[in-house]
């Protein structure tokens, strides 16, 4: 992961897959709040801020939609469920995207701050 004193960064396609897979696995724990970790991963390993929030948003969204696809295969009245719970579904989807973006931002900014802190002493040392 680490090359020298800097963490390895990923471009959009591989990071999206990492975020999606980790979010999906963490959902299987049945504690949905743990998906926060997947968002943090997206931020920590993103090459830039845009990649971080896109991976967070799309990774989370894709992970949730995957479960819905599975549910759709089951023989029951999901169509009625969606009509009843369309509000939950719509708002939940938006909140999920926001959660993915937010967690990725936290990861991204945290790692930038850490990296900058790590970088500062080395500059001081060089001045000496």
């Amino acid at each position: 992961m680490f090359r020298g004193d800097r963490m390895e960064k990923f471009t959009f396609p591989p990071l999206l897959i990492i975020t999606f897979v980790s979010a999906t696995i963490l959902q299987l724990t049945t504690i949905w709040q743990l998906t926060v970790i997947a968002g943090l991963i997206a931020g920590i390993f993103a090459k830039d801020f845009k990649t971080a929030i896109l991976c967070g948003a799309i990774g989370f969204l894709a992970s949730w939609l995957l479960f819905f696809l599975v549910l759709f295969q089951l023989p029951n009245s999901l169509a009625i469920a969606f009509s009843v719970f369309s509000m939950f579904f719509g708002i939940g989807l938006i909140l999920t995207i926001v959660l993915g973006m937010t967690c990725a931002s936290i990861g991204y900014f945290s790692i930038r701050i850490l990296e900058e802190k790590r970088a500062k002493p080395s500059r001081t040392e060089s001045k000496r």
Partner: protein
Amino acid sequence: MKKELVGLGISIFIAVALLAPIPSLYSPSSLLGLSNPYTGVWPSIYSGSYPAHGTIIIPGMEHNATVVIDSYGVPHIFAESEKDVSYVIGYLHAHDRLFQMDLQRRLVEGRLSEVIGSETYEADLLYRVLGLYRGANITLELLQNVAAGQLINYYPQLDVSLVKDDAGKILQLLDAYCAGVNAGIESMKKSGSLPVEFKLLGYQPEPWTPLNVLEIDRLISWGLTGTFDDLSLYLIYQGLIGKYGMQNGTQYLLEYFPIDREIDHYIIPKGVNPIYVVNPADPPESSPTPAAMNVNGINEIIEWARKAKPLLDPIKQSFIGSNNWVVGGNLTDTGKPIVCNDPHLSLSAPGVWYEIQYVAKISASETINVRGVTFPGVGFVVIGSNTYVGWGFTNVMADQMDFYYYNWNSAGQYSYKGTWRDVTHKPEEILVKTDGGVEKHSITLNFTVHGPLIERGGISFAAEWMGERYGSTEAIALYRYAHAKNANDFLKGTYYFQMPPQNHVFADIYGNFGYRAAGWYPNRTYSDGTMAISATNPMTALINRLPLNGSASNVIEWNTSDWIDPNEAPTLWNPSRGFVVTANNRHASNDTYAYCYDIAWGYADYYRAYRIEYDINQTIIAKGRVSVDDMKNIQNDVFLVPASTLVPKILQAYAGGASGDTQTALNLLDAWNYTMVPDLVAPTIFVEWLPIFKNMTFADEFISINQTVLGFIISKSDLDDIVNSVPTNSLEALTQLYQNNHWFDNVFTSGKKENATTIIRASLEKAIQVLKTKYGDDMAQWEFGNIHKLQLNHQLLSWFDYPHWSAWGYSDCVNNIASTGNSGPSWREILNFNYIGQSFCIIPGGQSGNPFSPHYYDQLRMWLDGQYKPMSFPTTSGAVTDAESVLMFVSG
């Protein structure tokens, strides 16, 4: 660096806002949790169906059991023991009806506010006072004592030695049932598939216990015997006496609420239909004279109960009834009896019943095969049949509740039998859900020797309800019904059916059939030992219908050493008439039955019973014998008897003709065949007219009484309740027999005397105006189907209501889908004892309480259209012809 810090701060702030566990349905964390595809509402939806094949583990089961779910979602259970059947029923109840069960448990325990909030606090408070849960606890103790062979001191008539073993088995079955429910709960918790209602309300169910089973039993009993009518009748009586004096006031009360009705129809017929005229001019010494009490306080208590009513009455939301009848083999086309039953209870989504069939080994060589309906939360078949005997219930409308008032001293003591007694206190806490968590409310329950004190508006009554004070043994009766091998066995079992008393009709494959108003009824006696109520003295019938003076020197109390037990209840065995019909009507006349005033508080109008008998007799006249198909037609009969007796009176009132809309309405009524079908206009006119006719006849007196005697202003809804509670056949009797009765005179029109004809005309014209306002001038738009619609609604969320389809039938029809659309036949069964496997049944809704299950309301349309599904009794899993799912239940 600064930019990153600001970005991090904002992101953390948003994340905290999203994830903070705010206890509100609409908080971001709740919405994220509920919409999450893995843990949110979706798995609950998916779990509505059973897999085509599956294995379910229930720790503790003795052997494996096979369950076949049929195409209506009805489970057929094939087990090696009754205990295993109980495990399985528990699991299935939890899977299909857990939220309904939990809500009812919380209702009984006065713990709804804990999960719903302050809006249910008053209902919780009332339930704590009423103490259904205390009664459940006493019943559990009773069963344990009976199983241990101990005598029950308040039931000296109960021969414990006869039922000791049964009680022991029942306790085992209760434990097994609860283990099954709890296995179901655990499995749903693990898979995140708890019913969606739990997720929306944000709580999880607690484990189910035997006490909870008995709590649901108490809730049913409360629905069928609990009533504040003693207090309502007191207010009316007090008002009538205050306005018209003791003699006339009593006479008027007995016209408004006749103990002996001049037009009536008895379950046990007499050779000659008796007409008994009460002579209020000669009140006997023992007639009750109501003491002057704080009427405002009484009104507040009634209001308290009224406001909690939708929650108080999951079984009985309004005055409703049931039908059952049995026709002996001499009158059927097969030569074997047919039993029919349609209990009319509150209709809701999901419904009150859960159907099952089970086959269980009870010894090495014997099995029992039982099918019928259970209450979710209670693991016994309540109404149904085994392969030998079948049965059906209607409510006796029993009087198992009295209210006592007392003299109090300044120290807060009450007078009882000449001494001052301290009230017993019991502190409790009610938890109330709030936005910030849970609030604790400390309350104190107070008790006298007669029961818990209901206190409001400066007045208090001790409520003595059998279900709170005494345990009961109906579980033993139901156990014996399942095991009965013939009608005689069954009749013996009815001895243990204590509450809520039910009119049982039954028959067996050998051709025997009969009837019993099974229940244990309080025998009210004075403290000197004399009986308080006598069939030969109709005035004494008011004693148990009004509050009692608990401080009287010769106080009237329940004699618990001598109950009116089922052996003294109305009973028929192979009656020579060839059939028995009950429809909550009066059991017997006062000259044929000694306890005719003791056992029931009131009776339903005679219309349904009369119509069923008429249908049976007409069929026999036309065809010689009745068949199962005839029984289906009778259960779905929508002929309205009161219309057939009152519409001619309307037409007679306009003998000289009318004009305009009135004449059009008269033409429609004249052409009407008195059936309540959706595409006719005449039923709409009649059902709008009848309450207005009642109102114009009775309301003026009650408004006057309230203004001048009772001293409080009666609200419109209270007035409507009082007026609507007048039995329609009281009004019919007045209209038919006493055209110039004083009730028809409007007390507010001085110098003018109205009679039945003038009130009929005025009420019809008002009804037409009301209909025009409601539905427009075009009478074609007044079709009955537009106004009479089903209202089978979910307890909490209107999203999950059943469709509001136009309904046939009406209150007082045999097909008694009430005017409100939310009560009616909750189960229809037709048991064919020529071959029990060719019986029929249907429920209004479906088996599943999961709104997304294909069985949520798959029987509703069929039920509405008068169709039935087969009620078969397969003996092996392979014999279930329409299997949808096959499940193996195994021990963990």
